[in-house]
């Protein structure tokens, strides 16, 4: 029987999220003092040493990003942007952090900003997250009043301003470059990469973009040190990870555990097992832009390196459980409808490809065994072409669920 290991969520449900005093009494903003008493370089070095990887989906080493953003053009304006758009279906862990402990995120952002010498930060938050929005708004004004934000923070020479920008309900706006466009007040179309945000981000300035959970890890790393951080998780995925477990389970919810947790333990011990008590049929890891795994993968260790070996992804930490009684074709159709709907339409392969494969998937429902197999095959081929030729990661995503469906569930789909 495994248990949660609450580090990020340790104060969640314990302190009053609307009270900065509660947060401070629980040891909050201590990490900030530690950071400010050292040099920015030290902050970056500590994060690099911690091995923290981005929790937004791509798992990119956070320290490397910070180094890149700090390195360019001394003296220029820099920005820190928190990605709180949380649009990936089945993902709700950032919301848990923001609603239960907004100051943790704020503290993480100030530390990040200090590390790269940014003077301004934005939290790009999913528009529908009203409570998170309100809590953060309140917390930010408290932080200003208490001198954690604004000019000369805690008497140091460092100043930092922080602002919230609500998004407008587009999945793609969670993609970092599109988010920067949206922050600049433009329509949410992706930018051409490179340049990456660390080179030319918001208004062309070096910008650090990190996920909420990533930033919420920084206070711990700075206060207790990188080796403390590395004592959780695995060697290549250090730290804890919050999984959003949902679907056909008895106790859906956010669970913070050591990275590397065994998939079945997560489902059975923490999420209460499947609803009908039978072995699950499939799990979709990482949301719509994620990968399907079959029950034979129930011993999977949930860390980047192991998942990669088995051609699965960790993504944002979404774990969508498909019970034995549920059909896969409708699920697949709804994923493809999602991509069709969320494709911004800028590039040809994704705009038309997502429409085309969705239309094809609809034809599957009434089709027989062989034509289902051939339609799925055709869809996978299209998705592969889209992955090669699309402009941004959205168009490169449908291949992930489709290919894994075909690999593990070809026959199931043909016969269900």
């Amino acid at each position: 029987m495994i248990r949660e290991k609450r580090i990020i969520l340790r104060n969640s449900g314990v302190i009053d999220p609307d009270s900065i005093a509660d947060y401070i009494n629980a040891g909050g903003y201590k990490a900030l003092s530690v950071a400010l008493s050292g040099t920015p370089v030290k902050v970056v070095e500590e994060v690099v040493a911690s091995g923290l990887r981005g929790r937004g989906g791509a798992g990119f080493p956070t320290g490397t990003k910070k180094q890149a953003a700090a390195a360019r053009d001394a003296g220029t304006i820099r920005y820190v942007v928190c990605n709180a758009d949380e649009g990936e279906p089945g993902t709700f862990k950032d919301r848990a952090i923001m609603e239960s402990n907004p100051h943790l995120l704020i503290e993480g952002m100030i530390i990040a900003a200090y590390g790269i010498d940014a003077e301004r930060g934005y939290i790009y938050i999913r528009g529908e997250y009203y409570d998170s929005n309100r809590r953060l708004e309140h917390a930010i004004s408290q932080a200003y009043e208490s001198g954690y934000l604004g000019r000369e923070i805690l008497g140091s020479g460092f100043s930092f301003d922080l602002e919230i920008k609500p998004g407008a309900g587009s999945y793609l706006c969670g993609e970092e470059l599109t988010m920067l466009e949206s922050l600049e007040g433009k329509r949410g179309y992706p930018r051409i990469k490179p340049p990456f945000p660390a080179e030319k981000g918001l208004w062309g300035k070096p910008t650090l973009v990190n996920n909420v959970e990533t930033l919420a890890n920084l206070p711990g790393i700075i206060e207790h040190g990188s080796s403390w951080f590395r004592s959780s998780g695995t060697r290549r995925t250090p730290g804890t990870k919050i999984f959003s477990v949902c679907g056909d389970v008895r106790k859906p919810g956010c669970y913070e555990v050591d990275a590397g947790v065994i998939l079945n333990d997560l489902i059975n011990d923490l999420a209460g097992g499947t609803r009908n008590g039978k072995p699950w049929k499939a799990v979709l890891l990482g949301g719509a832009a994620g990968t399907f795994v079959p029950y034979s993968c129930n011993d999977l260790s949930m860390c980047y390196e192991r998942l990669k070996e088995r051609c699965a992804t960790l993504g944002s930490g979404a774990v969508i459980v498909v019970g034995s009684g549920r059909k896969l074709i409708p699920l697949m159709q709804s994923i493809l409808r999602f991509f069709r709907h969320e494709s911004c339409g800028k590039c040809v392969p994704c705009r038309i490809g997502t429409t085309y494969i969705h239309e094809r998937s609809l034809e599957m429902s009434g089709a027989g065994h062989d034509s289902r197999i051939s339609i799925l095959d055709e869809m996978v081929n299209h998705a592969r072409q889209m992955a090669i030729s699309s402009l941004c990661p959205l168009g490169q995503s449908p291949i992930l669920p489709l290919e894994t469906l075909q690999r593990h569930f070809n026959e199931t789909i043909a016969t269900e």
Partner: protein
Amino acid sequence: MLQAKEMVIFTIDGRTIEAPDDSNLLEIARRNGIAIPGLCYHRKLTPTGACRLCLVKIEGMRGLITSCTVKVTEGMKVTAFDRELEDTRKLLLNYLLYEHNDAYDGTYPDELRELIFRYGLEKPDNRYFKPVWEKLKFVTDDSSPVLTYDPSKCIKCFRCIKACDEVQGKNVLSFTDRGIDSFIIAGTGIWGGSECDGCGECIQLCPTGAIVEKPNREVINLEKIEKSVVTNCPYCGVGCQIELLVQDGRIVRSNGVEGVSPNDGRLCVKGRFGYEFVHSPDRLTRPLIKRNGSFEEATWDEALGLVADRFTEIRNRFGADALAGYASAKCTNEDNYLFQKFIRTAFGTNNIDYCTRLCHASTVTAMLKAMGDGAGSNSIEDFETTDCLFVIGNNIIDTHPITATYVKRGVVKGQKIIVVDPKWTPLVRYATVWLQPRLGTDIALLNGLVHIIIKNRWTDTKFIEERVEGGLEAFKQLEELTARYTPAYVEEITGVPAASLNMAAMLYATSPTAMIATGMGMSQQVTGTHNVFCLINMMLITGQVGRERCGINPPRGQNNVQGATDVGCSPLNYPGYMPVTNDDNRRRVAEVWGVPYESLSPEPGLTTVEIMQAGYDRRIKGIYIMGENPMISDPNLNHTEEALKRMDFVVVQDIFPTETTRFADVILPASSWAEKEGTYVNSDRRVLRGRKAVGCPGEARLDWKIIHELAGRMGWPMPEYRSENEIFGELARVTPIMAGISYVRLEQGSIQWPCPDKDHPGTPTLYLDRFNTSTGRGKLFPVEYVPQNEQTDRDYPLMLNSGRLLYHYHTATMSRRTKVLRDFVDESFAQIHPGDAGRYGLTEGARVRIESRRGELETTVRVSEDVLEGEVFMPWHFTESQVNRLTRDELDPYSRIAPFKLSAVRITKI
């Protein structure tokens, strides 16, 4: 000047290619004949990476890369064509055909269609998918006067959006909805009623005919185009290069010419759609002689015989100075050159002028005196690259739309703009600071700026010492004169807050480079010359001249208003600004013309308004008017009308019956610009080649041929020119600033004068080393502010200002014969401030009578905060409401320009 970039060497499909470092890979590949497909890329736009057709492989880079988004680097190894790439491209094209309605009607160039053929997809059987576009419920937008948008043909390449935003600086277009359902909207919905002003840049850059031109849609067939002719725009002085498509002897389309100065393919609504007048049924096609008060058709022989006889008779009876000529700012250099030669020889007088007197004569006078050249000092491209632009009395967005595109692009890159205008203009949106002085107080304002500049030591002492005549001594006088123009004093006169004055002075004087663009608001005043002196003073003491991207520019009104003066249509100067009073000049000209030196008059002639005043006084008896319409364009029209009536013999040579032809004794049918070979000079002194697209209608003749024949009939024969080319050859011989220019050279591109010899490359910026004055130095002219004579009073409580609109041009003889332009605006109006509207009980749309001390008119009210309280603005193009019935013919004593910008009026409801 752009710095030459280093060259790099790289390979595409094994072929070695050399190109400037950092250039666009797709562009370079195509220039080297490697036809990588691609639909969303356009040379003029930032890369979009949308269509993905230009994917290539680059050694060392992961996956497929869009070549349109990559810069070339040394040693790069590119694969542009292999099986995988071609398969991917073919799939992408099939995808496009899935959403795209590929019906083609042959009325537009279709880049997608070319690719469809190239990849063998023209037959539906060869395509991968059954199309889905019919299921997407797209609605065609037909609401614009100039274009139609059909979303089913749209491939969402972003070219139109970027054309509108990045190229024209208007930013009207965007996508709405998402994914495959997305389509283009203008503003927040359909084109009609949006801010789209009809320039058609989106049409020109749309690769698939999703946006197409409305005019001639029914007629045009690209396969039946018999010729396409590159020529000059017939409207304003920007001098845009256009390509006219001719089908069945008629012009059916005008495209912007890509890749050449001054416009690089851009046009405004007039240049793109304003050609319809050429084929108007109203064109004059036969000579007309007035007999017993009405016009009767006549033969050329009859008409020319009569004209020659009558003019000769007047010359013999009353002397040469009883004759006068109005040249034309719309005719070519060749036409105008021959015209002034005709007036100076056959008439024997220097009484030659034209409407330039009514636009920038004061500017030219001041510039000639202070700096020695009567033209803009910079090139159009500098409007984008200078650090600071001081725009005064110049509604540049409406009157010089393409110059304005450069300005707007500059603003995006951080250019600072100072607007000085009593009336709101669209440029105010882009301005760092807007000064809104009361009408007629410019001198006080400019002296105030000079005062602030001197106070803050933002002057350039070294420049003053080295390049200003009298150096610091002369400067001292200016300092003393402007000492009393303190910000507080200037605020009192002009109404402009001291803080704004400070800001403007600081921006102009301290920017690394700064240019002035001065317009009609400055020049069309009784103090016009003094106004411009003040501007030049400010420029000289700050050293914002004599370097690249610095100087002063008066964007010119008509397509050849610059050229006509350059080639001698001036009462003071022979071609090339050589004074007629100078004996040597007279000798030189007489020699080239082969006339006795004594036959050329040494007396300066009368100017435009003076000619009419002399007509009124019965001192001028006969006039020859070529392509001008003084009965709209001259001030105090009631007086002009009387003058024309009192003259013994009036000849008007034009393409249309106009307000002026009514007063003619003989009307000679002439040719439009589309029927001519020749040259024009635009606002940045660029000599541009115009070419013939269609033949003259009916018996209409080329202007120069009419003049030529008349000269012969009056006993002053000119050489037998075989072509316009030969006329230009002679012109170049008497015009030192154009001596090095020839038709052969112009085939390679335009040349900016001065160009003194055939190896000279032309002059993009004037005054880099010296001014063109006798001493080589610039001159300061300190002048005092004096209140205007024309003042409001109890009877005439409002001050009327007049000006132009984007959609119309000059006296509207051409623009109002074009349906598209009429569709945008076809009515006169008067803008008045809401406060005045309340005061005089006027509401939007009310019909009113406007009266001045000289005349009256009727028009419609538009209530608008664009004008200051106490001031009224009217466009002057409309014959139904002739603004110049209200204006004065009091003249600027130096340049003889009239004050169109300032007339006291009253408004009453009818």
